[in-house]
């Protein structure tokens, strides 16, 4: 009996590390990049790819947390508002105190974690669907953020986050640090959700919460941790956003990010009803969205076309998912 497990290696014991949908995504992205490089030679250059990766990093980092949230059967639409709160607080702190990078980063992470904890607590103890709770907190966080902005842009932000920025200081061998940090987080999250017992629990909770509880899984704690983690990652994304921008910050920061993140997660093959999905897929989804946006810009097409293409991606991703489900249901 043991020959079965040892004889055929790890691939037999675990589900495959990369699923079909992820391979399709990789293929689509590769094809897009190839096409764009051929059509607009400037696409393949560092000057074009570096900003793409810098813009990708915050979305992908939040998407990691969002994947856990959605896999466990929830959703968090307050991430854009949290992002605004974290960036404006951090920006004002930098302006006011001239804090160095690390303490400022910690403040942003802690603040994000706190906002995530508020979501988590309300969802676990309020027993109201996550979409309602986070819709409420999104408005609340937005109010807080706008109050802190006080109807003014934050100007002359010191370049404390240059290390994560889009300038020369933010790169090693031409690769943006924020992208490297993102890779690190994605790898850690991928390993966590695949190999740690608590990581596997998210799938069980999203599959059937009642059964998960009966199986002895600490459901409330896991759900809580998904929202806190998402909040912390939003805090990190806020710092990346600050670093990737100019020395001013206006009230539009983060606007629409929640939809960009959810789009990435859904395109990546995560089921919006929970129970299925992967971190790798979400990051690939984010990369696809960013590639489409960059591509449309570089081709000189009207920018609203990017929305059309992203919308199509979502429809195709959800459509193939549904078709697979229905085939299986037979």
């Amino acid at each position, binding site marked *: *009996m*043991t020959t*079965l*497990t*040892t004889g055929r290696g*790890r691939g*037999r*014991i*675990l*589900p495959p590390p990369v699923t079909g949908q992820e391979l399709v995504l990789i293929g689509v992205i590769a094809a897009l990049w190839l096409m764009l490089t051929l059509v607009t030679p400037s696409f393949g250059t560092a000057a074009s790819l570096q900003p793409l990766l810098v813009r990708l990093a915050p979305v992908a980092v939040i998407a990691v947390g969002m994947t856990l949230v959605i896999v466990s059967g929830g959703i968090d639409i307050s991430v854009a508002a949290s992002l605004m709160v974290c960036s404006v607080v951090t920006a004002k702190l930098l302006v006011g105190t001239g804090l160095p990078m690390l303490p400022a980063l910690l403040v942003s992470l802690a603040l994000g974690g706190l906002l995530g904890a508020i979501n988590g607590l309300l969802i676990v103890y309020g027993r109201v669907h996550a979409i309602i709770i986070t819709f409420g907190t999104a408005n609340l966080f937005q109010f807080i953020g706008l109050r802190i902005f006080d109807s003014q842009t934050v100007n002359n932000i010191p370049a404390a986050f240059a290390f994560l920025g889009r300038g020369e200081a933010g790169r090693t061998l031409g690769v943006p640090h924020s992208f490297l940090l993102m890779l690190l987080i994605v790898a850690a999250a991928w390993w966590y959700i695949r*190999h*740690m*017992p608590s990581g*596997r*629990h998210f*799938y*069980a909770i999203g*599959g*059937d919460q009642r*059964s*998960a509880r*009966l*199986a*002895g*899984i600490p459901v409330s704690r896991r759900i809580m941790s998904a929202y806190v983690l998402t909040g912390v990652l939003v805090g990190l994304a806020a710092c990346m956003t600050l670093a990737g921008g100019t020395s001013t910050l206006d009230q539009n920061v983060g606007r629409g990010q929640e939809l960009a993140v959810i789009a990435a997660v859904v395109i990546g093959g995560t089921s919006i009803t929970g*129970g*299925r999905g992967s971190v790798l897929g979400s990051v690939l989804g984010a990369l696809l969205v960013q590639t489409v946006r960059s591509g449309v810009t570089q081709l000189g097409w009207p920018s609203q076309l990017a929305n059309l293409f992203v919308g199509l991606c979502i429809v195709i991703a959800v459509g193939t998912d549904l078709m697979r489900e229905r085939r*299986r249901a037979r």
Partner: protein
Amino acid sequence: MQTREETQPLLSLRDISKRFGGVRAIRHADLELRPGQVHAIVGENGAGKSTLIKILSGAEQLDTGTITLDGEAIGIRTPADAIERGIATVYQESQLFGELTVAENIFIGRELRRGPRVDWAEQNRHVVELLGRLDLPADIATRAVSTLSAAEQQQVSIAKALSRDARVLILDEPSAILTQAEIDVLFRAIRRLTDQGVAIIYISHRLDELFSIADVVTVMRDGRTLGTYDLAEMDVRRIAELMVGGEVLESSRDRRGTRGQPRLSLRGLGSSGRFHDIDLDVAPGEVVVLYGLIGSGVAEIASAVYGVDPITAGELILEGRRVRPRSPRHARSLGINLLPANRKAAGMFSFQPVAFNISVGNLRYFRRLAVWLDRDRERAAARGLIDRLAIKTPDERTHVGNLSGGNAQKVVLARQLVERPPVLVLAEPTQGVDIGAKEEIHRIIAELADAGTAVLVTSSDLGEAIRIADRLVVVREGTVFAEFPPHARQSEVLAAAAGERSGTDGGSAAQEEAPS
């Protein structure tokens, strides 16, 4: 088997009672379970089987009585308690997680670890061994549960139950969703387990199969255990008689004279995988009841007539014309109205007032100038039906969700009666309603028939079927199995639906031909 009498009981229940409010769900029940034995529990719906199981599995707690395991009195307070004592339950509804592998499902919540991570190899080794015990292929250990068939998933649930060293395994209607071939596989698995000394409690409505798997059977009726019988000394008819008791149910219907041409006829009607070769006539003024156990195909016949499930064979004749309902809307326009089974999922709009629930689906009738709703007429119709069906509601503006089950069911029924329907199909008309409402609904059904509606009822409630039927048709394994006149004996009908292998041996099919 021959040592059954000598072996010490593994688990015994003595004088168990349990009340839910004013309802005595279990009264002084006794049960004795021996290792290596398959112990069947049978009884009609509401006899107390599931409550007894829930007490054993820790989902409910007993009021009085004792449970003894290995001669030692124990208390079972939570599902975890039961599992710890080695009492595992496989419920009808799966508690598996589709996207996780079989091995993961079995160890979820108590993963084996190597350092911080899951020890996949070790988990897998255990699971492969476990699957071997059930004679299942080792390679399903790493497959996602959602890719397995219902039967395979059930086996995985059994494996999961066993993985916690279960000595008592409770199977709650395991065969209801399985095909015959799958049932054979299940039985082989059960025999392997009993060979290993596991004691099995087997709940089933299908009496025939007990004879191929169980050693003894305990019959329950009205919350009592009537006794435990050796299956070698029983037959289907005797079990059925014990289940229903000696009580003779009066049919509420007195047959009137000739009914004339059938209004609705089913000719060789079939829907692939659901039912086949159904021939049936329903005349105006007649109540025809299709009675069958869950899984017999009875529910699907109603759905097909109403255009929900596809008709793949045969034809439906309505007043001499061949029709084929494509959708519920189409069925209604043809004059076939349906009261769906499970009103909560398919019948009522809980957050809407009574009047809305009655008028929805009849909006054309309430339309004024083809545009807006005639609210006065809607209100008047709702009030009229509230009176006629004796629906207990403060007024027609009350939300249906606030009414009792029986009254909510009457509201859903009222919707079908706004315009006097030529054909009314009722699926499980009194499921989950109290006894008073049940009688009233039966009275309404009789009145409708007397007023000339052709009524087709599908039911899994034997008493109801006998009480209201002008003709009672037993459906089994997807087709018509036997037909009974009014005043049929309960035990005969039950035996036909639940057990006797062919329609001829009891003679019940041959004995009654519809008067033609």
